[in-house]
């Protein structure tokens, strides 16, 4: 409990910092003033108001990705699972490029659905391929299936992009996960998706806890394994596709956060999920702030920062004791 | 028990040299990180005997065997193979004197038995050297003594567990060494196959005089087939000696932490353990039966 409170306080502080810091740093009192007094039309106030959607998107994306990662790690019993590792992001990217190139779609609202379909199909393909064979979905097989599907989709994506310079220019901004394009108008249609995903996540938690002991034991304990896995999968896809359609592919948040949560609160997925939902936005906002400070006045997109933080973390896990028996 | 007929050794390998073949270990210690897996174990094997290394899980018996075969480098102590420090011998030369079959090896996909066994001839080849008459004979001999000749063209994936293990033993035999080390040659095998494999090893030892040292789980099988047994506990040698010296209630209690009675195996006249269990205790059973009534 204490930890959750501390986490929430950190999150509030980070949100304020996120609003205050950027190419123009705004003192905190001016930030408060900008929101308490709607008539304040100074440049600082305008900048602060602009950064609010960005911050809120950061929080939403952080919660969604961390919860999606927790679900994926739980349902696959795979400590290396993450929406980007298991091919969801490349599925969304591929679907979006196809829709841009062949169906002339170009508004972010349309991308939401396209991204959802793309990542759902990719996630299904990775799971089906990775769980084939007598020993089921081992860590290595699932990770490899994700990597191969990603390699295939991204090379198809670039094959489609190559002769279409116009699409490339739109796509390359989308391809790197970033919060800078955040607008409330775009977030609203995605909200139901995220809320739906979170609700399903909460509903599956008891099942995921049972799954941690292995399929057979879980079934013996009366848990409906296939059903749990199906629902968890739908929840993870909703959460990560929703985020991806708004902020582009942001990797490794879903990988890192559940592990940190597990270190802090133990192995009960009820606690892990709660802790992840707090730690996720903390990590994402921190990464976004780092990205803004690092190369001022321009930004490093948050997806880059999380990849650079996340990949070494993945490697540490892969070298660690828990994966001796990959 | 009737021994299967074994074809005579056409090249007469083994026999004369093996009398002088020897493998000894002096104060071997192996550490993994900070954990000392093997701590100062001695061994002296010579004169065409079968040896068995027994012990509980994690006692370092496999590690010790790997150190004997120079698969791990010991932090302390030396392994002497036929009078030379094994660490200083070229690894290919070691491979012509000592063969090792690790625990449950995996064959590459689609490889035929003949192809697999012929890889045992690797230590006799340099780049560009031809497949010689001697190679051919050694492989055929290995296939024959392991009764695998009829399966030479089969793919290894199509074999049964016992046949597969015999194919791997054939690979080690094609290596034509006087000393063969095996790590749990009977794991994952059905009971009948376990006996089949061990009988084969015993025949090889009896006919070609090959020194055999194996790590083995089953205490009774160890007692039945081995000339000497090394019982290990926590990385050290607990007891070394003939089966009747090692297989005693005291040693088994120390090494495996269980109470046993020893009887004589009616088939081989070797010691045989009978484990105590609460279930087997007469009074307990009586009490239970009374309660039922």
């Amino acid at each position, binding site marked *: 409990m204490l930890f959750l409170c501390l986490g929430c306080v950190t999150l509030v502080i980070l949100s304020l910092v996120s609003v205050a810091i950027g190419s123009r740093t705004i003192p905190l009192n001016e930030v408060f003033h900008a929101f308490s007094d709607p008539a304040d039309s100074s440049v600082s106030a305008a900048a602060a108001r602009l950064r609010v959607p960005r911050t809120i998107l950061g929080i939403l994306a952080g919660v969604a990705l961390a919860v999606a990662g927790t679900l994926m790690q739980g349902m696959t019993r795979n400590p290396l699972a993450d929406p980007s*590792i298991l091919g969801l992001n490349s599925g969304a990217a591929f679907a979006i490029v196809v829709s841009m190139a062949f169906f002339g779609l170009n508004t972010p609202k349309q991308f939401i659905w396209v991204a959802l379909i793309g990542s759902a199909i990719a996630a299904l393909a990775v799971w089906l*391929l990775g769980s084939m*064979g007598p*020993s089921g979905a081992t860590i*290595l*097989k699932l*990770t*490899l299936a994700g*990597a*191969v*599907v990603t*390699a*295939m989709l*991204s*090379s*198809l994506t*670039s*094959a489609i992009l*190559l*002769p279409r*310079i116009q699409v*490339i*220019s739109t796509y*390359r*901004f989308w*391809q*790197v996960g970033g919060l800078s394009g955040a607008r409330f108008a775009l977030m609203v249609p995605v909200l139901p998706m995220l809320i739906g995903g979170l609700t399903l996540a909460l509903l599956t938690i008891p099942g995921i806890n049972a799954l941690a002991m292995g399929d057979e034991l879980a079934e013996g304990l009366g848990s409906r394994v296939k059903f749990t896995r199906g629902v968890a999968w739908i929840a993870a896809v909703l959460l990560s596709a929703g985020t991806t359609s708004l902020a582009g592919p942001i990797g490794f948040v879903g990988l890192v956060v559940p592990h940190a949560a597990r270190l802090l609160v133990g192995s009960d997925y009820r606690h892990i999920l709660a802790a992840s939902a707090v730690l996720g936005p903390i990590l994402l906002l921190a990464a976004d702030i780092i990205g803004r400070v690092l190369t001022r006045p321009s930004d490093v*997109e948050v997806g*880059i920062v999380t*990849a*650079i933080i*996340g*990949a*070494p973390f*993945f490697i540490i896990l*892969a*070298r660690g004791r828990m*994966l001796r028996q*990959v | 028990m009737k021994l299967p007929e074994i074809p005579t050794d056409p090249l007469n390998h083994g026999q004369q040299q093996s009398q002088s073949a020897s493998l000894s270990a002096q104060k071997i210690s192996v550490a*993994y990180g900070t954990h000392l897996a093997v701590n100062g174990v001695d061994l002296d094997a010579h004169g065409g005997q079968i040896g068995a290394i027994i012990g509980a899980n994690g006692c370092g018996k496999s590690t010790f065997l*790997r150190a004997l*075969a120079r698969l791990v480098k010991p932090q302390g102590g030396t392994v002497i193979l036929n009078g030379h420090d094994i660490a200083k011998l070229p690894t290919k*030369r070691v*491979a012509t004197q000592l063969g090792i*079959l*690790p625990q449950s090896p*995996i*064959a*590459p*996909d*689609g*490889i*035929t038995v003949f*192809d697999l066994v012929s890889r045992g001839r*690797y230590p006799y080849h340099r780049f560009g050297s*031809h*497949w010689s008459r001697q190679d*051919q004979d050694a492989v055929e001999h290995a296939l024959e003594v392991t009764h695998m000749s009829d399966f*030479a063209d089969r793919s290894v994936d199509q074999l049964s567990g016992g046949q597969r293990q015999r194919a791997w033993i054939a690979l*080690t035999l094609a290596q034509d060494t006087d000393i063969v080390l095996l790590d749990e040659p009977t794991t994952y095998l059905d009971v009948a196959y376990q006996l089949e494999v061990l009988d084969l090893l015993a025949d090889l030892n009896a006919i070609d005089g090959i020194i055999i040292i194996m790590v083995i789980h089953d205490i009774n099988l160890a007692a039945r087939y081995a000339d000497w047994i090394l019982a290990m506990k926590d990385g050290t040698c607990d007891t070394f000696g003939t089966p009747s010296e090692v297989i005693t209630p005291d040693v088994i209690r120390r090494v495996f932490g269980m109470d046993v009675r020893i009887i004589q195996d009616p088939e081989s006249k070797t010691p045989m353990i009978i484990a105590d269990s609460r279930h087997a205790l007469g009074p307990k059973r009586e009490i239970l039966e009374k309660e039922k009534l």
Partner: protein
Amino acid sequence: MNQTNDEKSVALRASFKRAVMVIVSLFILALVLLYIDIIFGDSLYSFTDVMDVIASRAPSGITFVIGELRLPRALTAFACGALFGMAGASFQRLLHNPLASPDIIGITEGANTAAVFGIVVLGISGLELSAFAIVGGLTTAIVVALLTFHHGFAPQRLVLVGIAIGAMLNAIGSWMLIRADQWDIQSASRWLTGSLADSDWTYVIITMITLAIGLIAVMPLSRQLDMLRLGDDVAAGLGVKVGLSRAAIVIIAVLMLSIATSAVGPIAFVSFLAGPIAVRLIHSGSSAIATSGLVGSCLVLGSDVIAQHATGTQFPVGVVTSVIGGPVLVVLMYFSMRKESQL
């Protein structure tokens, strides 16, 4: 092979005969594709034209088209295909995993990201860019290998570490692309797709020399590779210097891969598919490195023929290999996942 083994080694002889047959047919197929790649185009040339050009008695127009455009292009395709195929197969055999090709375990990404950096940030092209890509591939391979080493070597760990490094490099690469201007983006995407359009004699010479060196180096090592596939312990027991052989194979494979990538870009999936196709053709337990090289050549040459002539527009060869290779890859993965002994 001499006659001593004519009695009972039916197995060995049959697989040897099959291997020879496969290699010869693949070689003929590669030659045919090479020939088609040279004679077809805006104007069709005959065999005598080609011979005339080689004997340098053809008119200057033909000499230019064949001698400076089509011949170097086809020869580069042949050499790079072989290099991709051999490098990919070496990795797959070494890591006991048909899915562990260099484009999955981060090495190709290393070369790519270095190339993008070269194009976008340094503004270099041609040979300089190639050198840069080679350094990128080599550095990544070293980093992956170093990070994998942890109480010994485990192939599975290398695959996982490589995937992570690849993901990180990809992110960095796309970040650089955002900041690039229009012109650089196009040349970068072209490079990333893999294209034979820039081939000239310099590349032919470089890649052919690499191919020759690679073949000479791989042939003696392929025996050790065959042994390593029995598992490290069995191989070591048979007298293979496991660490040394593995390091040598990795170094040669990475060099072959990086040099081919530096010449034509990462032509998608050739290094991935060549090895498994070769194994299915030869159908034996051998590593089939040289055969994989020939399969690679045929794949690149065939795809180039399709890319140039199958439709009205000309595509970079990488587009064809991705579109054809992608589905094949999924099928291949389907089979290797089901049959776990390979994983």
